[in-house]
Each structure stands twice: as structure tokens, then as C-alpha cells.
């Protein structure tokens, strides 16, 4: 099965290891991974800030870049949802609406793709450690992917899972919200970090680098002893320990 990876800009520039883990995982599961070079950013930062005109330029670029993809897989629920949203954004645009819909229909978040398309619930991963999981808002509520990541984690050998208190509450990232409304964002992420500490878990896992960068950045600043990992890194772990 040919899979076109939509890596996201955060992964491309900052969390390259998440991209690598995603590629290796998908290959391990028998997929041929392609990386359409024209891809840049899905346009979400501008779109969510109200700059729809600017965002549309980014979106058109993505529609073109992924035009020939069979499946599009993205290690971010939020960015995958953005592709789904294109259909709405271009609904009244005769030139782009059909292409936007086509793109939306073939886009999946990574864990969603594994469970819904590949039909797998056990990826054969093993990981020794106590893990708690942050349910990202866009992935859970907008994309509607609630159980796939938990199902996959459940089948990782050696992994123990502790539920995060208020698990569906936003971490305070919200894209540009994190820099426009920093004092509010700070309170939100502080409560999130506090809840993570309460679980006693050594690892906080999520499926969205935006949220994870926010939580990781705050946890590090506060000196909290928790390692923040993307779910691809756990699912790609075949040894007893996570890869550096």
C-alpha cells in the first residue's frame, strides 16, 4: 500500500525523530512511504488566526502537492483535521472544491490509519514504562479519533497505562493562542502538567506535536520529571527501551 506522508512543519523542522519513527513504523506495517516534496504547511496557523486568504494559498499548495496520493497519513490529528476542513473552506470555489474534497477524503491521522485502514490493533511494539496519554482536542473532537491511539497503546508489550485526570481538557496550546494569550495558556498548561505529575507516569504520550511541544516546553521549564513522546515513537519501539 502506498502512503503519502504529510509530515507537518513542526515535525519537519523541530521533531524530526517523530517523522523518522512514523516512516519506520509504516514501513514495518508493510506500507511504501512517499514524501511529496512540495508539501509545506497546511495553513492552520493563519487559518485559525482569521487570515483565511493567506491560509488558502498554503492550502492550495498542499492540494497540489498531494494531488496524486493514494492515502495521506499524518502524525498529527490537528493537521490531518485541517485537510478535512479544506472541503469546507473551498466549498464555494468551483476551481478547487472537488480537489479539496478528494484530498479530505483520503487523509488520515496515523493511529486512525493503522486501526481503520490497515485494520490492525497490535503493531508488535514493546516499550517498558508507565505511560499516560493526552487526548488532543482537534484529533478527539473534530477529527473524531478517540479510541485508536488507546487501542494501539493497549497492545504495546511492557507498557503500563495510567489515565490522565481531566484527560479531554485542552492543554492550552491552541496554535497562535499560545503566544497571543500567553498568561491564559500558561495557566492551562500548568494544570495539564500538574495532572501529568499526579499520574506518576514517566512518559506523557500524545499524537499531536503542537500540544506536545507546549506540554514539553512547560514541563521542562518547571523541571518536571516526565518525558514527552509522540505516539509514533512508542509504536515504533521494538526494544525494551525507547530510542534516543
Amino acid at each position: 500500500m502506498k502512503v503519502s506522508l504529510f509530515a507537518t512543519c513542526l515535525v519537519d523542522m523541530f521533531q524530526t525523530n517523530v517523522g523518522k519513527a512514523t516512516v519506520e513504523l509504516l514501513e514495518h506495517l508493510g506500507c511504501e512511504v512517499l514524501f511529496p516534496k512540495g508539501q509545506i504547511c497546511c495553513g492552520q496557523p493563519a487559518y485559525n488566526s482569521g487570515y483565511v486568504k493567506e491560509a488558502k494559498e498554503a492550502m492550495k499548495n498542499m492540494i497540489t502537492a498531494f494531488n496524486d496520493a493514494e492515502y495521506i497519513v499524518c502524525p498529527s490529528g490537528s493537521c490531518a483535521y485541517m485537510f478535512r476542513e479544506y472541503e469546507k473552506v473551498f466549498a464555494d470555489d468551483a476551481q478547487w472544491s472537488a480537489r479539496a474534497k478528494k484530498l479530505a477524503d483520503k487523509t488520515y491521522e496515523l493511529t486512525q490509519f493503522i486501526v481503520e485502514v490497515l485494520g490492525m490493533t497490535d503493531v508488535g511494539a514493546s516499550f517498558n514504562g508507565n505511560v499516560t496519554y493526552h487526548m488532543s482536542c482537534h484529533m478527539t473532537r473534530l477529527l473524531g479519533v478517540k479510541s485508536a491511539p488507546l487501542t494501539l497503546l493497549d497492545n504495546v508489550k511492557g507498557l503500563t497505562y495510567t489515565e490522565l485526570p481531566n484527560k479531554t481538557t485542552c492543554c492550552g496550546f491552541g496554535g497562535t493562542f499560545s503566544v497571543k494569550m500567553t498568561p491564559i495558556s500558561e495557566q492551562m498548561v500548568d494544570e495539564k502538567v500538574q495532572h501529568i505529575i499526579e499520574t506518576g507516569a514517566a512518559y506523557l504520550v500524545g499524537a499531536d506535536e503542537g500540544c506536545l511541544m507546549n506540554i514539553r516546553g512547560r514541563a521542562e521549564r518547571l523541571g518536571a520529571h516526565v518525558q514527552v513522546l509522540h505516539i509514533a515513537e512508542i509504536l515504533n519501539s521494538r526494544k525494551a527501551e525507547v530510542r534516543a
Partner: protein
Amino acid sequence: MPMKVGNESFNNRVGEGIQNTFMRSAVSGAQDRLETNRQLATEELGNWEEWRSLGEEIRQHVLANLDYYLTQLSEQVAARGGHVFFAATAEEAQVYIADVANKKQAKKIVKSKSMVTEEIDLNHYLEEHVGCRVIETDLGEYILQLDNDLPSHIVAPALHRKKEQVQESFQHHHQYEGTERPEELTKHARKMLRDDYLTADIGITGCNFAVAETGSVCIVTNEGNADLSTALPKTQITVMGMERLVPTFEELEVLVNMLTRSAVGQKLPSYVTVLSGPRQEGDVDGPEEFHLVIVDNGRSEILGSEFQAILQCIRCGACANICPVYRHVGGHSYGSIYSGPVGAVLSPLLGGYDEYKELPFASTLCGACTDVCPVKIPLHELLHKHRQTIVEKEGRAPVSERFLMSIFGIGSSSSGMYKFGSKVASSVLKPLTKNDQLSKGIGPLKNWTDIREFPAPKKERFRDWFENRQKGDD
């Protein structure tokens, strides 16, 4: 701007909210409890999504036929001997109500909780222009009124007050000598208000829903204060936002149930009171005269606009009870009597962007509000529409931000620009980087690094790794 709360700027209000530790623990405690109750009360139905669809459909049907149903309502109220006044603005409503009060030579008015009367700042107007006392009878509102404070939650107005503060207010205003126990404080209010009900000239209420077919108004309370406010005074004035109506008793039933389950997790509150016109011939209690004031005050501009869905709102407050932003900043930070997500959508529409342009941005668009809304208002989408309007139609975004976003537009649509930018990012940010991390950013990064670490951009981008790996394969 009558609906406005305080004169502080948005940032100052938020700062004050965040510093107010009592308020914050009260709000988070209330949120957790109310949201748990809501979940239990909606899940026990087993088919809550069907209820939500029904609630949405009823509200949309009413809005699509608002001219028809309001006409029918007014005919029915008049047929039962009630007087109906259509107020296009807050001022028209104020003047009409003051006029009625003056004609009745009212000295004392009892009032049950109503958001729309807060919105039109009715109490102050009546005190000034009629010279009468207006007494709020809802316990929470009663407490706030003593100190000229304003509600911070649609359903629990005095959520931000400590019981010790209530005790102090009672001591200060009533020479109260009891303890700070809520039972005792409540008993005191009961005693004080009992006499007011019996001696008031006019009772003023809000309206949870009006019923077009029967010319009725429905008021929902747990305290029973609306019943006493309407059963005893000779004149009743009910003020309603123009969109708050249903076709018949059958839709009333559905929405009242959804309202109370969503607001506090109750199947029904202690009192659901349906009042139709003044007392009927031979009745001994109930008002001799009934006035219904139907308020537009900016709502008709929302009708037929891309924001119309906000008029579906039944004021349950469930969106505030789940909102992570409301949780940390509290109701007063919104600077409006309408707080929480519904307030962030509605306040700019009713009060204008000058006053409320920050509110739509005070959200992570997490969508929790949309999920719990019993009438399926796409709240986070409406917040996003506001953002788009503010940026693109109103041109109110800061210049620096507009500049950044135009760079974004170019950088994210042109492969060459992105390649260049992302490649040099690592070297440009190098001087600020230590141990692969950025602790003191500049420009837009500063706000990030004020509270968090920022990862340094990798020298080898993911796309470079992928390309090199493929080359190796070949």
C-alpha cells in the same frame, strides 16, 4: 454599554482573574461538579444525541419563523388580557418599563433573575428614573446587588463570592449577626425577602421560554423566587430576548428538560412555572396586570447572518462549565454579563468589536463547548468566524501580525521560500540556542519562551533525512 462589566482592559481583567485564587478554585470546583452532573444527566437518557438534534431543530425552526411566532405570541398574550411591548433597543425597553412603574407609582419592585434585564441595565435605570427600590430575589443576585457587583456565571451568578464575603455584606447592610454557614445566610435572605414579596408593587421577571400558541411565559427556578415575584405584586412585567420562544407546550417541554439537564444535571428544577397573562377572572393571587416586553437590542442583526446559530442559545451555561479558558480567568474577565464561550460569541455581536474584539481570540478552539451544547451551536466555529471578520473585514489585527501572516502566506505556498527559510532557521536561531533549546526567544517567540522552552530547529530537517535515506537506498 449596559452589558459591560467594569472598565478595565481585557489584559488587566484576565490578569486580575488569574490572580484571584479563591475565584479560581470556586470556578474549577463548580465546573467539575456541574460538568459531571451534566454528563450523568445526559448519559442516563441513553440517546442524548437524538435530543440534541431535536433541540437544534426546534430552535432553528423558531428562528426561521421568528416573525410568525412572535406575532402569534403577542396576539395570544393580548387575547388573555396582557400587554405586549416590542422594544427595538435597550432604551425603548427601559423607557416603557419605567413608564409602567411610574404609572403604578411603584416604590418597591421585586425581580427574579434575568440576563436580558442585566443586558439592558434595567435596575439602575428604574432606580434613577422611577426612584423605586429594585430588589433582586434570586439568592445569588441578591448577594451581588448589595455590593453593586455583577454576575460572573450565567447560572450561578455569585460563584466568585466567598461565604465569608456574603456574611460581611449582610453584616454591613443588614446588621446580620449570624455565622457564615450557607444555611444560615440563606435563612436570613429568606426572612428579608419574604416581606419584600408581600409589599412589592411590581414583580419583574425574565423568561426562559415563551410559548407562542398559548401566550405563556415559562420561568425556571430552584428557589421559587419567580413564583413569589409574580404571585403577589399587582403588576407583573416579563422581559424576554426576542428569540426565546417555542411554538407549543410540546417543544417547551423538550427544551426545559434539556436546559436543566445541561445547566446543573437536574431532570427538572424545583419550579417550572408557566404563566399566561394576568390572573383570570375570580383568581385571588397572580398579577392584575401583565406586561410582556420583547427585546431586540441587536439580535435582529444577528438573524440571517453567519452568526445566526448563536440565537439558538437557551442560556444553560454548559459551555462555560467545560471551557478551559473560563476555568482560569473567570466570568468577569469577559467584561460582559455574557461570559464563557457563548459570551465570547455573543458579546461582540451585541456590544461591538470595539469593546470585545479580544474575546474570540481567547480560545484554543478546542471545541469542548460545541460538544456539550444541547442545541448544537457550533461555538468554536463561530469564534473562528469572528476572527476572520476581525482580521479580514474589520482590519483590526495588529500591523506586526498582519506582516507575519503575509510572510506566512508566501512562505507556506512557495516551495523555494520555505526551503530557504526552514534551512537557515537553525543558523539564524543558533545564537539563542543552548543544549538544543531556546529559552529566551525574540519577536513572536518571546511570548512562547516567557513560559516554556522552545526546541531549536534541527540542522537536518526531516525532509533532508528522508531524501538522503532514499538516495542511500538507491
